[in-house]
């Protein structure tokens, strides 16, 4: 489900079934040279999470991307997000990011790091097949997590 008011009503009624939160983590680089790759990474991440949401609509709540500056303290973001999520009923939380710095943060479980693929210049059908490929790498990780602890 998406983080929009209408779907949150549904989420609140179906919390037993929607037991997984997905949090995209997005680094912003607004320097002249960094802006385009940063935008490309954002496009990639949001395309991927949208596909994921479509596949698992009834089981995941996709939060809007948590965006932060290059210099942001990842550890602090991690702590604050975990604390916020702790008070919810989610049994599973996944973080998706293209920002390699998250690999050094050990306190977060289930951080899926994917190197961004520049999809902006691809034509529609090629982009679709590339993104479905990416999705196919992520889906089993969810299935595995669910089958282990549900």
């Amino acid at each position, binding site marked *: *489900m*998406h983080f*929009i008011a*209408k*779907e949150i009503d*549904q989420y609140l009624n*179906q919390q037993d*079934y*929607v037991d997984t939160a997905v949090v995209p983590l997005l680094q912003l680089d607004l320097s002249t040279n960094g802006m385009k790759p940063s935008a490309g990474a954002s496009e990639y991440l949001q395309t991927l999470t*949208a596909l994921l949401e*479509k*596949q*698992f*609509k*009834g*089981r995941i709540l996709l939060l809007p991307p948590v965006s932060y500056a290059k210099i942001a303290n990842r550890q602090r973001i991690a702590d604050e997000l975990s604390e916020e999520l702790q008070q919810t009923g989610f049994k599973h939380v996944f973080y998706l990011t293209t920002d390699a710095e998250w690999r050094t943060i050990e306190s977060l479980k289930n951080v899926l790091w994917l190197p961004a693929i520049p999809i902006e210049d691809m*034509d*529609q*059908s*090629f982009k*679709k097949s590339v993104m479905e490929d990416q999705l196919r790498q992520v*889906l089993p990780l969810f*299935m595995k997590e669910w089958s282990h602890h549900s």
Partner: protein
Amino acid sequence: MSNNRVSRRQFLGYTLTGVGGFMAAGMLMPMVRFAVDPILQQHEGGDFVLTDQAVADITEEPVRVDFSFEQTDAWYVSEVTNSAWVYKEGDKLIALSPVCKHLGCTVNWAGDPEQPTQFFCPCHAGRYEKNGQNIPGTPPLGPLDEYEVQEQDGFVAIGAVRDNTLV
């Protein structure tokens, strides 16, 4: 790959209610249809989206067929890709919606290796027969929706979604 012989704009009439509209569409479209004079429904051939799936290649085994159209959400126009599970029953083409009637995940044909002749929903193990009939005892409470489908120049064309007419 891409097949643009029929303008995607022709599908604008089916615009749903936004990114979250898939669930609502299942409930709203049938209601809209009841409000339309049934005679008119015979002639809505213009609103089909042509896919690049050849009808000749369709067998009795459901395959996923994607189709894209533009969706307008307030001022924002985006291209949406949906898919259908298409198979033949005799000579008749059947197209089922992949949207699970429980909470809206995408179902897969033979997604559960133990049930190779059923649709399977990975979210809460919902299952459906090939004709879309939900299997009692699994979470879904109704059958998969059905798409109107026709052949155009040898290719599959997908139309509006409606309640399942097969079960």
